[in-house]
């Protein structure tokens, strides 16, 4: 959200500075152009941070990058997670990695959670169950909105009691399944909370595409309003007078002091568009809640 904003400002500053210098010192125009190009390039390429370990793509509710969960077990886990999301809007996602490649478990889990934006925007009801297989580490990262239900102590218990024994036996599929089952039963144990979250999701219109379209629509209406207002004022100033209170400017004839006929506005309601098929994060965030463990 922040980054493009800054870049836009930098870009416009590039315009301003090169415009100023070429106006003042025309001979230095070429050099300033070269300079601003360098600034541009450094802005564009410098913006991408160097990350040692890339985030895996969020391909589904189970991202088994380490390939340790059998397909059958994975399908069962995905079904459970999908059913829970339908009931409560909570997004619980499992990720396995071969190795952390020296990254800190907690730090990486939090950044991955934020990059995937698990949980619904505003609710922040996401949970990430991260397993680093070669590091023998497990992390349950809990979004802001679920910290009160899936507390640090409970997350720790899930790891120690349900997951670690199966992981020690080398059965990752069973361990992850047991962990997921526990997490879901804790989350749905708070029945009133589940209902609340699901209801709020229904009440608030889904964000994303619809929100963007609404913003665009409002912006368009404002733009039209503003431009017509501006035109009505500027036409008498810059336009050519062709009659009483009638002016022609930029090829448009305008009569001042006459209320324009109400235009027929073909407004159509936006029908909420459900995202089909693919799975993506709902825009939630996490502040480092949850617990870590190892086996």
């Amino acid at each position, binding site marked *: 959200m922040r980054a493009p904003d800054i870049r836009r*400002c*930098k870009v*416009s500053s590039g315009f301003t500075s090169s415009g100023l210098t070429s106006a003042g010192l025309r001979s230095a125009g070429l050099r300033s152009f070269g300079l601003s190009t360098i600034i541009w390039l450094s802005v564009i390429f410098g913006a991408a941070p160097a990350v040692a370990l890339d985030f895996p793509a969020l391909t589904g509710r189970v991202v088994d990058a380490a390939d340790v969960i059998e397909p059958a077990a994975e399908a069962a886990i995905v079904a459970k997670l999908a059913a829970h999301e339908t009931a409560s809007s909570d997004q619980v996602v499992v990720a396995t990695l071969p190795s952390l490649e020296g990254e800190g478990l907690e*730090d990486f889990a939090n950044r991955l959670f934020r990059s995937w934006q698990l949980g619904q925007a505003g609710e922040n009801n996401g949970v990430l169950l991260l397993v680093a297989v070669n590091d023998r580490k497990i992390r349950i990262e809990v979004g802001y909105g679920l910290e009160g239900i899936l507390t640090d102590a409970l997350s720790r218990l899930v790891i120690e009691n349900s997951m670690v024994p199966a992981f020690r036996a080398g059965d990752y599929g069973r361990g992850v399944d047991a962990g997921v089952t526990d997490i879901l039963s804790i989350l749905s144990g708070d029945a009133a909370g589940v209902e609340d979250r699901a209801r709020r999701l229904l009440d608030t219109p889904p964000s994303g595409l619809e929100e963007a379209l609404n913003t665009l629509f409002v912006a368009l209406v404002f733009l039209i309003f503003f431009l017509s207002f*501006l035109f009505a004022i500027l036409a008498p100033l810059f336009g050519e007078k062709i009659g009483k209170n009638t002016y022609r400017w930029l090829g448009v004839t305008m009569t001042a002091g006459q209320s324009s006929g109400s235009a027929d506005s073909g407004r159509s309601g936006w029908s909420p568009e459900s995202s089909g098929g693919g799975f993506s994060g709902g825009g939630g965030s996490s502040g480092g809640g949850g617990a870590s463990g190892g086996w």
Partner: protein
Amino acid sequence: MRRLLLPIFALVSLLALTGCGVNAIPTHEESAKAAWGEVLNQYKRRADLIPNLVETVKGFAAQEKDVLTSVVEARAKATQVTLPDDILSNPEAFKVFQENQAALSGALARLLAVVEAYPDLKSNQNFLALQSQLEGTENRIAVARRDYIEAVRVYNTELRTIPGRWWASLLYPDAAAMETFAIDLQSRENPTVKFN
């Protein structure tokens, strides 16, 4: 009619300017302040957990008086200091705050190391819950500090680069660069374990 021209031109150029960062400094300043609020919130949460933790440890390991006292004292020192309003742009006050919190972190780490010698305590349910809460809070502090560092980086960069620099001198002469967390040499060293 022609008198209207100037105000209209001013209005239009003002609208154009908002697209180019005239609001960037206050916006970034507010988000940095919000991130700082979260840092304070998490440090307070840690301070609130400590009395319970100390009481629980006392029940099993009352003889570890030195360590327990140092934790209580470090907590008192960290919480009793009233933070000045300008702490974010005041390097001395910020340093004192950071040192006090680092001292408390050190005392807590010693306490949790000492606890390893008491199997009864380690298996106590109350202690386990407190320990996981404390770990969670330390992790939240780390996240809050990271967010604060990033927010301050964005704000300070805006303040020191063009056009933010121009806006600051023109419209926000009071805007000052904010302090950020630095790891001092002492805590950069790995903790040493001694067997005697």
